[in-house]
């Protein structure tokens, strides 16, 4: 989204993170859609840099991500990733090292609405979460909403992360890319005449061709180097301007991850391979009727599938999940006086396979879950109304959900209650307000109700996205949330500095946890039967200090938070700390422009360790060691902290190529942050020594990359 502020009909436009452009804007608004399509039409107006008061003046708890700045942050393995850099924002906590799971203000990972040009993206990361699925060369805008989410967004409880590719069509043909040790990328942006602009981009890793031979030379077990971990993704799209305020755009994304393990005899683990990926196809048609009235239509397809094969204990297991979603959305924007009214509707049809696991060794042994099919829809209306120092954003969203009757194997048999069709209706009032106390400070309050009808429940948590899709049914009610938030925002020293303090309270209902054993998956026909439902609440305070301008810029975010869950069937019904409970969460970023050519930056993050289940004793039965667990989430992992630095040198322009070399060091002081915790044991005969041990992935990690941009 784009922010702007009013100077009658002509005013400066603040677009974060992309090339400066001139154009006319209709009105002071937080709404970008009403003006985005104007970009191409009037490209002559000088535009300033980022509005220094944007955070103080905005009505919602949204943050407009400064994409170019985030690209300068230190990154892992030489790849700058604005999406991964979201972890440095207030209220967001990263799950663990090498994970891109995002938990916003105590929410779950599946509660974030992640959009690529308006199309939902199910799985936002590649390979153990090390990279995001979004190609950094294409990202023009990112918006992150953690509170005061306006009524036009719905379907997820905790946050909205709205990524927009290719918002600004190029004036010339542009070729950009990055060459790194593990992966490279290339993107092309161009146009044909004034009406058609297009882009295409691809990324791919080549670990088995570069890193593996290197490892082999370093003496790593050749058996290990037979394994492969790769990903690729492609993006393509176009914008077409019909003139008279009409624009058609389309985008396509396809990405896939592949992991193969040849053999690991010590684990009785062989012939394992997994593939998974997202598929996104979307179209958008916008039309401006007048300076007051415009309209947008979205047509989207999103898909996600996973296929995994494991040989485990002499049995071959095939694991499969599949989800397809077809979505239509329309928005109408009406600007009248001090009102910015937006209304619209959304309709989706989704079809998903919760999970299938089948064994190859013995016929007939497989899970019996069937595809769930459901419609969901929403109608919304909201008004952003400016009354002097007060900016109100009031709206309501009514959401509808209808699960179709599940196909049963026999037509004669009466479907069970769980298979029958089921409908839900949700009323979601949203209200947020900002009151300017003077021209430098404001207070903001927001309250909102949210519903989520479709969940992803984690089954295994070690990098592979093996999650179960669970939609609302007669036994699993929709998850819902009441979210209250408020804060004080102030700018200091001629807007060079900015401080804020926010507090939030969230009350979750009908959260889901998998309540069965693995073997239970084979004995029921509806996954909903294996779910526990419970409630949760989270509260906390977020403090922020930020320096916006100067040779040195950066920010400090600190969050003090509590996050609880309570399920009747877990922990004897007693309240317990959620696995992503983070008492303290601190992120600091400093960027220093030494000269126009040299730039250095550093980030530091600190977070209280995740909560998890660990055993308190073990025993042997039937020649097998069994662990007995302590209270739910009673164990806290070691605290997480890390310092990264990055040095960028802008190379002199050669021909038409702008390029820069980047040296980054991830985890400068080599902190062993746990990736996961497990039990270690001595293997000597008759010695039984069980201890908690942890694996970590990322000690000090220098990397170098070359990024180029050809115009």
């Amino acid at each position, binding site marked *: 989204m784009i922010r702007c502020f009013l100077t009658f009909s002509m005013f400066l436009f603040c677009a974060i993170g992309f090339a400066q452009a001139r154009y006319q804007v209709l009105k002071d608004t937080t709404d970008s859609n009403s003006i985005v399509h104007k970009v191409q039409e009037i490209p002559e107006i000088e535009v300033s840099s980022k509005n220094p008061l944007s955070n103080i003046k905005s009505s919602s708890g949204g943050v407009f991500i400064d994409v170019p700045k985030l690209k300068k942050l230190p990154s892992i393995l030489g790849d700058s990733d604005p999406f991964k850099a979201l972890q440095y924002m207030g209220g967001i906590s990263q799950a663990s090292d090498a994970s891109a799971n995002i938990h916003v203000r105590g929410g779950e990972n599946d509660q974030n609405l992640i959009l690529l040009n308006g199309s939902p993206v199910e799985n936002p990361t590649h390979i153990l979460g090390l990279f995001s699925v979004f190609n950094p060369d294409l990202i023009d805008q990112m918006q992150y909403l953690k509170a005061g989410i306006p009524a036009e967004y719905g379907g997820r409880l905790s946050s909205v992360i709205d990524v927009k590719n290719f918002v600004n069509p190029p004036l010339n043909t542009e070729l950009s890319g990055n060459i790194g040790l593990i992966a490279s990328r290339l993107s092309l942006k161009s146009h044909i005449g004034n009406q058609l602009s297009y882009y295409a981009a691809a990324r791919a890793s080549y670990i088995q061709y570069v890193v593996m031979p290197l490892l082999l030379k370093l003496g790593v077990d050749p058996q290990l180097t037979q394994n492969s971990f790769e990903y690729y993704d492609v993006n393509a799209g176009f914008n077409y301007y019909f003139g008279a305020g009409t624009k058609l755009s389309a985008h396509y994304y396809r990405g896939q991850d592949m992991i193969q393990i040849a053999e690991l005899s010590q684990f009785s683990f062989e012939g394992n391979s997994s593939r998974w990926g997202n598929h996104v196809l979307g179209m958008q048609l916008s039309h401006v009727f007048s300076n007051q009235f415009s309209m947008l239509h979205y047509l989207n397809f999103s898909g996600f599938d996973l296929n995994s094969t494991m040989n485990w*204990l002499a049995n071959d297991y095939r694991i499969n999940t599949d989800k397809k979603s077809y979505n239509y959305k329309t928005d109408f924007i009406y600007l009248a006086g001090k009102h910015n009214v937006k209304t619209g509707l959304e309709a989706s049809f989704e079809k998903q396979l919760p999970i299938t696991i089948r064994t190859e060794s013995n016929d007939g042994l497989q899970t019996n879950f069937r595809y769930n099919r459901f419609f969901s829809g929403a109608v919304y209306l909201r008004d952003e109304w400016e009354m002097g120092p007060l900016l109100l954003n009031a709206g309501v969203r009514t959401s509808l959900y209808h699960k179709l009757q599940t196909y049963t194997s026999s037509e004669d048999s009466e479907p069970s209650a769980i298979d029958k069709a089921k409908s839900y209706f949700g009323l979601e009032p949203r209200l947020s307000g900002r009151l300017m106390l003077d021209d430098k400070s404001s207070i903001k309050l927001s309250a909102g109700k949210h519903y989520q009808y479709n969940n992803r429940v984690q089954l295994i948590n070690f990098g592979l996205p093996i999650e179960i899709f669970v939609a609302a049914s007669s036994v699993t009610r929709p998850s819902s949330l009441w979210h209250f938030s408020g804060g004080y925002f102030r700018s200091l020293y001629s807007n060079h500095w900015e401080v804020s303090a926010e507090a939030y309270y969230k009350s979750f209902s009908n959260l889901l946890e998998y309540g069965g054993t693995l073997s239970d998956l084979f004995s029921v026909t509806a996954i909903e039967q294996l779910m526990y439902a419970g409630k949760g609440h989270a509260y906390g305070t977020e403090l922020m200090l930020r320096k916006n301008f100067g040779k040195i810029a950066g920010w400090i975010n600190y969050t003090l938070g509590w996050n609880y869950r309570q399920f009747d069937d877990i922990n004897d019904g007693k309240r317990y700390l959620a696995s992503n409970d983070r008492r303290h969460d601190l992120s600091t970023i400093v960027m220093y422009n030494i000269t126009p050519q040299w730039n250095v930056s550093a980030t530091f993050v600190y977070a209280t360790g995740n909560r998890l289940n660990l055993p308190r004793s073990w025993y042997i039965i*039937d020649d097998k060691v069994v662990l007995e667990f302590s209270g739910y989430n009673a164990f806290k992992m070691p605290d997480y902290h890390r310092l990264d630095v990055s040095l960028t040198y802008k190379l002199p322009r050669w021909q038409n190529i702008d390029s820069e070399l980047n040296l980054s060091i991830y985890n400068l002081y080599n902190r062993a942050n746990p990736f996961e915790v497990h039990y*270690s044991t001595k293997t000597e005969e*008759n010695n039984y020594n069980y201890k*908690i041990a*942890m694996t970590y992935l990322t000690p000090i990690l220098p990397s170098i990359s070359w990024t180029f941009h050809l115009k």
Partner: protein
Amino acid sequence: MDFSFKINIHNPYILLFGVLILLAGCYPDIDYTSKGYTEKIIVEGKIESGKYPQVYLSLNVPLSESVDSTTIRDKVIRHAKVTVSDGNVEEILTSKWDVERFPPYVYFGTEIKGQTGKTYYLKVEYGEEYRGEHAIKSQTTIPLDFQIDSVYIEPASVDSLRTLSVAINIDKDRKNAYRIYTRKSKDKRYIETPIVFNSDLSLDGLQKFTLSPLPNKNDSSFTEGKYFAVGDAVDIKVIAIDSTTTRFFKDLTMFSIIAGNISINEIKPLSSNITEPGFGIWYGCAVQTKRIIIQ
């Protein structure tokens, strides 16, 4: 005994990727003390058709406690009074060392022999506390008799090796499940084909199971794995167990395998059929055995 259980069965991905990017490391010293440890008496007892009952007793071990081959014996219960009854006859079991397995001490009967379809009661009295009405108790019924229908010998990829399958006629209404063991001539004892999911209560009619005994990884013949050598004499043993026992062993198989992986959202205790503070399983099984020479 095989103590090399698959503690990190899911971790290879993590480990591999760690090595892959030259990153792998392990910090074994996390400060951790067991919270809320409570002593449990672990009971593992069975009565097979045509055989006398056997019961093994031990204590659970706090995770923070290091145990070696000497101190592990402190966890073996050797002074309990174990009584088995068939409702009419009651027998106090005698005991002896049994170093072939853990716990290396067995309580066994000499009077009551298991009969298919009959119910047996177990009572364990231990220490001063767990006596009389506080004794640890359980009961089980031996399933009805069944037959091994046929055994299939099929060629493997290597000329001198074969795969084995066994077919059993299953009556679904009995709600029994089956565990299958084999003993090659070199094996000291029966090795189970891991049931994991193949002893399913919903199976019906003639069912064929491929035998793939999971050997000890320290075994020099590990690579031979699930195959059987031509000329070898192999004993096949199939046992039928009831639904309670099936549930217990299914979960046990899963729990013990995944035990090393904290990432599984699975911390439910096993479905014990022993009264507290006892924990474990007392089960009856109908047994069929067959010896074949691999052709």
